[in-house]
């Protein structure tokens, strides 16, 4: 059982730890958002990113297969034609941590990112666009996995 005093001292230690890790890597990088990659649900994730409530939007699109034969390599793409995108995220709902990849987009690149992710089981996959004006838009697609990607 953890009491309040322990909790506070733990948080302080954690904060100090995060501060040091944030100072070590290259200056150009934003600190790695460990909280976001630990998030178990969409709501937790949005809290960790400091973003608002996501709404479904037709302007965001997700490309993923209907059926993935091999869950270790599932090609997923997130894109939007809207201007003013700050971040694009790829989420897999039923993975141990929902966030797979978070892209920080500048005006020099299209808001169109493709990568490959691991999926433990059939799940909904989300493409989330965080806009400059604070809106959070997403598109969703169900991907069926016939062979899980996280087993040994």
């Amino acid at each position, binding site marked *: 059982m953890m009491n309040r005093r322990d909790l506070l001292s733990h948080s302080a230690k954690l904060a100090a730890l995060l501060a040091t890790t944030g100072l070590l*890597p*290259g200056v*150009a*990088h*934003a600190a*790695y*958002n460990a909280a*976001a*990659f630990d998030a178990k649900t969409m709501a937790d994730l949005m809290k960790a990113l400091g973003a608002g409530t996501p709404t479904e939007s037709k302007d965001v699109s997700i490309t993923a297969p209907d059926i993935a034969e091999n869950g*270790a*390599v*599932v*090609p997923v*793409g997130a894109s939007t034609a809207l201007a003013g995108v700050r971040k694009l995220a790829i989420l*897999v709902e039923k*993975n*141990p*941590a929902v*966030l*797979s*990849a*978070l*892209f*920080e*987009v*500048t*005006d*020099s*690149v*299209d808001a*169109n*990112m*493709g*990568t*490959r*992710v*691991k*999926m433990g089981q059939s799940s909904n996959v989300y493409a989330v666009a965080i806009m400059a004006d604070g809106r959070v838009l997403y598109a969703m697609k169900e991907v069926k996995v016939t062979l899980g*990607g*996280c*087993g*040994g």
Partner: protein
Amino acid sequence: MADPMRIRAQVSGDKATVRVLMSHEMETGLRKDSAGKLIPAWHIQDVTALHNGKVVMTAQWGPSVSKNPFLQFNVRGAKAGDKITITWKDNKGESRTDEATVS
């Protein structure tokens, strides 16, 4: 030192499509070895893309990105002869930078 990345950047219209294949284990930290012990997480955390020395895209990745990760994006206004530089850094502090010329 990790193996080099394979980077391909091709002009299509007013932009260039960049495709990157990195060589990395991307261990999730959830798998167990034959003795039943957890294999510690080992994955790429940060990816940075530069176009002629200017940062155009950064990414943060979790352990659920596939082994030997693939990445594709489009750089606006890139012309043949431009330089595309990709850097990744993993959670053990290792990093690798590779450069390719847009064709």
